[in-house]
């Protein structure tokens, strides 16, 4: 019995993380009917921001040598948490702005500018790497120049590209962005595992024969605070109300004067910041290895959690995440090799039995 309760507690800890990631999936699905497969990789970026902040950017103290610095580290950890959330939010906005919005609204001049550089810079960087001259700066300059030259070319192409309402295009783009972040991560950060050192003092508490660990409790507490905050934003603030309006009917919302693009950006920022927080917390408080594929498995599981709770439904994502965590934990304690399989068995079962998810409303799809 005690062992069972203990397993449930571990399940809730894992589940809280799944829930945080699942919220991003579900909010984006709510407003755009898009499954943003790049979301798991935003979570990975959150972990990497945490890693660099903890090891290089911020003056964390090694607690084994300076035990008195615990307070400083707590403050810095909070700063890192906010930093992870901020950078991930910016990344989320960027992904939406340059990958999904052109598909939705058409390709504009600003996009032409951006893609001109995106094409020009790697090409010149590659040329720079291939030559033996010492003047690498010349190539960077050339890249900028070519970027400007590319702009009208892209703008010309832009006129020929028509927006497509197809959800399939957006979905495939999402997979593309995900692969780009993963492999770009391998290129930039390297695939070798990195570890965040202990930044906070750790303690275990025994209560009724159950063991509670401080890092698990911190994850739970921060997750709960963030979810409460999200609930407040969605229910009581103007952008939150606009988000809900868009998820009901995007065209009607537009007619009511809501700047839908801006609200969609806001939604991505919100979801991405939650994922960033989750990524940092997992990397820092469970000390697992940080690699560019960090977000692959948790991302997929959180996606299942979002579907389980009802895609587009915010309390549903939280519920789905917790259920996923607990089920996984229970399965892992008895049949560890089935741990990953069970998530996807759940997905198949829920799609067969209740396709709208546990809390989702069953609505007829307009054809």
């Amino acid at each position, binding site marked *: 019995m005690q062992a069972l309760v203990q397993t449930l507690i571990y399940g809730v800890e894992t589940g809280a993380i799944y829930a945080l990631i699942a919220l991003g999936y579900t909010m984006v699905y709510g407003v755009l009917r898009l499954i943003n497969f790049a979301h798991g990789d935003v979570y990975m970026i959150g972990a990497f921001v945490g890693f660099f902040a903890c090891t290089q950017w911020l003056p964390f103290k090694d607690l084994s040598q300076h035990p008195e610095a615990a307070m400083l580290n707590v403050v810095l950890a909070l700063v890192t948490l906010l930093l992870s959330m901020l950078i991930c939010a910016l990344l989320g906005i960027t992904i939406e702005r340059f990958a999904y919005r052109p598909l939705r609204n058409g390709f504009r001049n600003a996009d032409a500018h951006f893609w001109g550089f995106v094409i020009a810079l790697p090409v010149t960087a590659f040329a720079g790497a291939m030559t033996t001259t010492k003047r690498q700066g010349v190539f960077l300059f050339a890249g900028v120049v070519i970027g400007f030259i590319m702009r009208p070319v892209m703008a010309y192409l832009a006129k020929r590209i028509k927006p497509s309402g197809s959800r399939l295009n957006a979905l495939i783009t999402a997979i593309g962005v995900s692969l780009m972040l993963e492999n770009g991560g391998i290129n930039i950060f390297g695939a070798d595992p990195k570890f965040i050192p202990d930044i906070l003092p750790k303690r275990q508490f*025994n209560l009724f024969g159950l063991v509670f660990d401080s890092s698990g409790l911190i994850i739970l507490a921060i997750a709960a605070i963030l979810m409460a905050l999200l609930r407040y934003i969605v229910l009581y603030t103007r952008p939150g109300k606009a988000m809900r309006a868009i998820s009901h009917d995007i065209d009607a919302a537009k007619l009511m004067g809501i700047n839908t693009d801006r609200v969609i950006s806001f939604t991505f920022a919100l979801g991405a910041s939650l994922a960033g927080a989750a990524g940092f917390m997992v990397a820092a408080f469970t000390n697992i290895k940080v690699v560019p594929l960090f977000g692959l498995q948790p991302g997929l599981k959180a996606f299942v959690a979002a579907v389980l709770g009802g895609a587009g439904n915010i309390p549903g994502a939280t519920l789905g995440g917790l259920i996923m965590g607990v089920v996984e934990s229970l399965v892992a304690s008895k049949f560890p090799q089935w741990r990953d399989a069970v998530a996807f068995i759940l997905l198949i079962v829920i799609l067969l039995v209740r396709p709208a998810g546990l809390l989702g409303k069953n609505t007829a799809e307009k054809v």
Partner: protein
Amino acid sequence: MNQQRRKSSLLGALLVSAALFGGGCKDKEESKPNGTGKSGETTTTASRGNVVTGDTIKIGEYGSLTGDNSTFGISTDRGIKLAIEEANAAGGINGKKLELVAEDDNSKSEQAKTVVQKLVSSEKVIAVIGEVASSRSMMAAPVCQEAKVPMVSPSSTNPKVTAIGDYIFRVCFTDDFQAVVAAQFAWDQGFKNVAVFTDVKSDYSKAFGELFANKLKALGGKIAAEPTYQSGDVDFKAQLATIKGATPDAILVPGYYTEVGTIARQAREIGVTVPLLGGDGWESDQLIPGAGTALEGCFFTNHYFAHDLPDPNIKSFVAAFQKAYPGKQPGALDALGYDAAKVIIEALKRSKSLDSVALRDAIADTKGFAGVSGKITLDEKRNARKEALVFEIKGKEFKPKKSYKPEQVGL
């Protein structure tokens, strides 16, 4: 419109900076063939394999210089380079200089096969050194076997590696021995009831766990629980809780350093205080950063090398190593890389002719070579019969605790 445009370009700049912000932290060791062109001409003939015709002798190396277990490849590479440099400084072989062609396999099995193909068929190396991970050695070995180019693995311990063919050698012991040593050590320490926690994705881990369990049971011990994990898992607490419920005297985790640290931390977090045991997959300077203090007082079996062993051979190696790589302390993988290269260099001196087929016979004849990781004699199965050393983790150091000869564990 204009305002919107400006905002978009700002965002574009943000993405670029986001993509570049980690650029300064890139920790990649580029490995390119050092030297191209006229030197090192070789040809292939059917009966002699790759034959040296130019004035340099090319030796190939493949390893995980980047990727999941990059510390394995980088350590080995340091040892190999040191051996080659020493040989060249001493005048080379018959007046010919040695040239190392190092290739990175990104810690990927398929990549290992591709780069070895390149080494034997386009670089025409006379011998190949690599890999650390058994699964990657096993992918590349058939390529060497077919091309009749001898391959010497510095530290692949899975017994199947050298069984691939008569051109495949290793300078380390096998898991048949290592796991038995671990079991014997556990028994000697009084760990009679041991839980075995293996990685189902790794051949090394599974075989290690099985051989350990067999030996411990033969000695009269018990296996308390046998849960599994998968490399890449985030949460091990559920399985560790099962282990905790079985109240073992120790837990064997024969995995790689990438997961062991996390497992140890989570074990301590849920109140498991018994020591963890492991194998040579733990050897990495990333083990302690991953584990923090959670592995204090734990033990792992490893190759017979420690930088502070009182052996003159080791002392001179450590001195040379620190001269070549200031501020670095050599580990077993550096030593094995060095020994693998040394075995080839010694064999080149004895080889009847400078072709890969004759070199194979010379390598097979290696007897009583005094390496820095122990005396190396290659047996008829092309494995080295060597001692194993059990290390204890104290603070940030690995301290030699006890050594075992094959005879001591009935092998």
